[in-house]
């Protein structure tokens, strides 16, 4: 990064006002930073920190309710905040481009990918059809998509998530903009795909000298890609500096807290206990989905094949894997939310895989699940108290007893027992997830399944919920099945780890063995792709 070059983006004293009635006055307040040519600047922060608002303000794509109220944004010296709508349209995709979080939904589903890139050229250049086509094929090759001609004519749903994100990148960079804004571009992707996309962005930006404003909540990604880092909290820029400095010598308490919350990828030594009673055992568990149709060829999807697992009391077994690996299918089979098609599931000594629904009911209590999204797994129209006691009351507990249990559990998950008569929307994401845990515990289960239970949470909240889960496991001597795609989380919470790929368990052992000395090639590839794996995030005193 040469100091002689003028910055491509200067944000000076930027404030964006929130509509009246919001929890604070400004979405973003008095933020200053620059992005130089060829530089990747990461904006990090938890949800609600205003990082996306900054990105959308630069692009001029803010929601109507939000208004930039002070400051200026200079793109190569030109103040974007003062630019007309027409001028902004001219700048978009020519000098500044943006890629988004969800490649699944960011492309128009009813238009071939090539045409969607063609729109950019058609709008901003005077090239004829043949020249445009040639340029698109060239950019598709540059983002390393196989068979550019085929991809050109493909619809988004015919491509994988990683391929779609490459299309987005191709679309953003086809006219060589000076600034690329990337809003969590790899958050929705699997870890191996994420590694490839990060590498691609870094390569392209270095080659063209593009300045990149990279928005993320993931410090692993920051360690992997950023030159400089800006930390945001509640719309204010807390701290900014070179990546190495921020990650290893943060000054502000908030930054220290955030970085300390990042789980280490090295498992802590927890000691392997073998003495507990086996709570759950699966034997060659399998689930096959077959689309039966009278007229068409039947499609068969093997979601889980020959899965052998066991969990003892007081132990946490983690299942890690990428999307589509079958980890959630296994969890759902164990809870009999779906019916396994092969194999056996022993809950204690009882085989439940083939048990008819009527007989199964008393066993339902013993296995409880906490789901991923605390916003959607609670009924918004009933109070959290009703939410917690519904299960126990279905199993014959009297209302007063159930309520007493709920009050106790609220204390267990460190929430105010007097909040039982409130509704879900009155709680934050982390609090809701605690309530979901309390609901599961109210059934006094033998096995607690956490299906990506901390994946939707901010890193600092995630840390608290993980600690809570672990504490509950120890106190109640509970068996926990922990499903996650996040290797760092798995490293911290699991005694044993099963790595799944394409429906099969490819590696199964103690966390120390699997993380320390992986044997399977897939496991190795998975670990190699984990962002920031070379970085040991320090634990700072946050006094």
């Amino acid at each position, binding site marked *: 990064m040469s100091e002689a070059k003028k910055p491509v983006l200067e944000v000076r004293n930027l404030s964006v006002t929130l509509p009246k009635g919001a929890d604070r006055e400004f979405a973003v307040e008095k933020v200053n930073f620059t992005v130089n040519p060829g530089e990747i600047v990461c904006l990090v922060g938890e949800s609600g920190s205003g990082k996306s608002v900054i990105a959308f303000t630069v692009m001029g794509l803010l929601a109507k309710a939000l208004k930039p109220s002070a400051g200026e944004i200079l793109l190569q010296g030109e103040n974007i905040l003062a630019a007309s709508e027409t001028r902004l*349209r001219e700048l978009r995709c*020519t000098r500044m481009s943006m890629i988004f979080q969800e490649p699944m*939904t960011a492309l128009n*589903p009813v238009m071939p990918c090539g045409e969607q890139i063609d729109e950019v050229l058609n*709008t901003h250049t005077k090239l004829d059809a043949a020249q445009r086509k040639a340029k698109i094929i060239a950019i598709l090759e540059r983002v390393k998509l196989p068979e550019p001609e085929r991809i050109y004519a493909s619809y988004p749903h015919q491509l994988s998530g990683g391929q779609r994100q490459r299309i*987005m990148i191709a679309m953003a960079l086809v006219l060589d903009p000076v600034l690329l804004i990337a809003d969590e571009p790899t958050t929705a992707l699997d870890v191996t795909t994420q590694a490839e996309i990060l590498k691609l962005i870094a390569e392209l930006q270095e080659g063209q000298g593009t300045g990149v404003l990279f928005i993320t909540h993931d410090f692993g990604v920051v360690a992997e890609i950023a030159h400089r880092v800006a930390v945001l909290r509640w719309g204010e820029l807390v701290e900014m500096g070179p990546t190495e400095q921020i990650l290893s010598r943060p000054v502000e308490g908030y930054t220290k807290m955030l970085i300390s919350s990042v789980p280490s990828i090295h498992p802590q030594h927890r000691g392997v206990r073998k003495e507990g009673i086996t709570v759950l055992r699966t034997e060659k568990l399998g689930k096959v989905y077959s689309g039966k149709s009278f*007229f068409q060829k039947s499609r068969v999807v093997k979601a889980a094949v020959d899965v052998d697992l066991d969990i003892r009391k007081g132990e946490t077994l983690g299942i890690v894997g990428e999307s589509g690996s079958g980890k959630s299918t296994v969890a759902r089979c164990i809870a009999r939310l779906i019916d396994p098609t092969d194999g056996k599931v022993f809950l204690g000594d009882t085989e439940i895989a083939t048990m008819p629904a009527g007989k199964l009911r008393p066993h339902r209590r013993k296995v409880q699940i906490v789901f991923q999204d605390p916003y959607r797994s609670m009924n918004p129209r009933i109070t959290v108290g009703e939410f917690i006691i519904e299960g126990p009351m279905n199993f014959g507990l009297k209302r007063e007893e159930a309520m007493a249990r709920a009050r106790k559990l609220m204390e267990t998950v460190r929430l105010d027992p007097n909040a039982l008569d409130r509704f879900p929307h009155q709680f934050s994401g982390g609090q809701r997830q605690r309530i979901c845990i309390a609901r599961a515990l109210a059934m006094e289960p033998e096995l607690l399944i956490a299906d990506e239970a901390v994946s939707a949470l901010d890193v600092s909240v995630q840390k608290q919920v993980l600690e809570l889960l672990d504490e509950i496991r120890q106190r109640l001597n509970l068996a926990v099945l922990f499903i996650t795609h996040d290797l760092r989380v798995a490293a911290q919470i699991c005694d044993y780890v099963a790595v799944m790929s394409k429906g099969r368990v490819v590696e199964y052992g103690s966390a120390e063995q699997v993380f320390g000395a992986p044997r399977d090639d897939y496991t190795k590839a998975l670990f190699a792709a984990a962002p920031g794996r070379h970085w040991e995030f320090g634990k700072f005193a946050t006094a």
Partner: protein
Amino acid sequence: MLDFIARRLVAIIPVLTVVAVLVFLMLRLTPGDPAAVIAGDNATSDQINDIREKLGLNEPIWTQFAIWIGDILQGNFGESFFFKKTVAELIAQRIEPTLALTICTLIFAVAISVPIGVMAAYRQGSIFDRIVMAFAVLGFSVPGFVIGYCLIYVFAIELGWLPVQGYVRIGVNFWQFLERMVLPSLTLSVGFIALISRITRASVLEVLNEDYIRTARAKGLSNRVVLMRHALRNAAVPILTVIGLGIAILMGGAVVTESVFGLPGLGRLTVEAVLSRDFPTIQTVILMFSVVYVVINLLVDISYTIFDPRIRY
């Protein structure tokens, strides 16, 4: 795709069976004797019984049903009790005005409601949006014959721009045909416009919140392109569905509208047939309406594939 069409066509059979049984039973179980209607006010019970015998109404009900179904399977829809013609002839005579009315109404309604729905969505909360929404409520709640008579009063009687009622065949004089189509189609389309513009607005509003609309704007496309190329096509499927289902409203509305404007169509034929207990005519017309309805909705389903490449049968 061909499989799909074949399956759907086969599925028409049970639908028609149910409709046939229901219509047949309901006509026979409701009071009112066609023979008495035909015989007139001064007929003796013997005369009425003779007529019943001649029409086959004295047979047991299941025998009557079997005869009727057997005839239909041979392509014979029977003879009208009242008009002294075969039902097939009757329908052939009466189908043109109804066909013309529904097609004009459809074109009219879609041409008006889709653009105003899109505009209302784009300018959500504006005065234009509110007017469209108010109109939609009004269009739904005012009965067709009220709208019809209001239009006749204003445009035919007060202003004298258009004829009050009547029908001229399209082959006889195209201009006069059009003149006489304007008011009925307008009347019939009011409810339809209200329905489609509402659904267009809702559907476009939903699409406008999608990520790919944000992407389109981030590409520097103009609002018009974003709206027409990206939003409308994605919003098409629900709009088409409602248009397909709405055909039923059109067919029901045709009965009233044809009566108000004196169009000699199937709607009026149905009313006349019902009043005179003309069983064969009623049965056939209703069966025909159900076939049309099922086939139109099949066409709508097929048309989805044009708008959304993800839909494959």
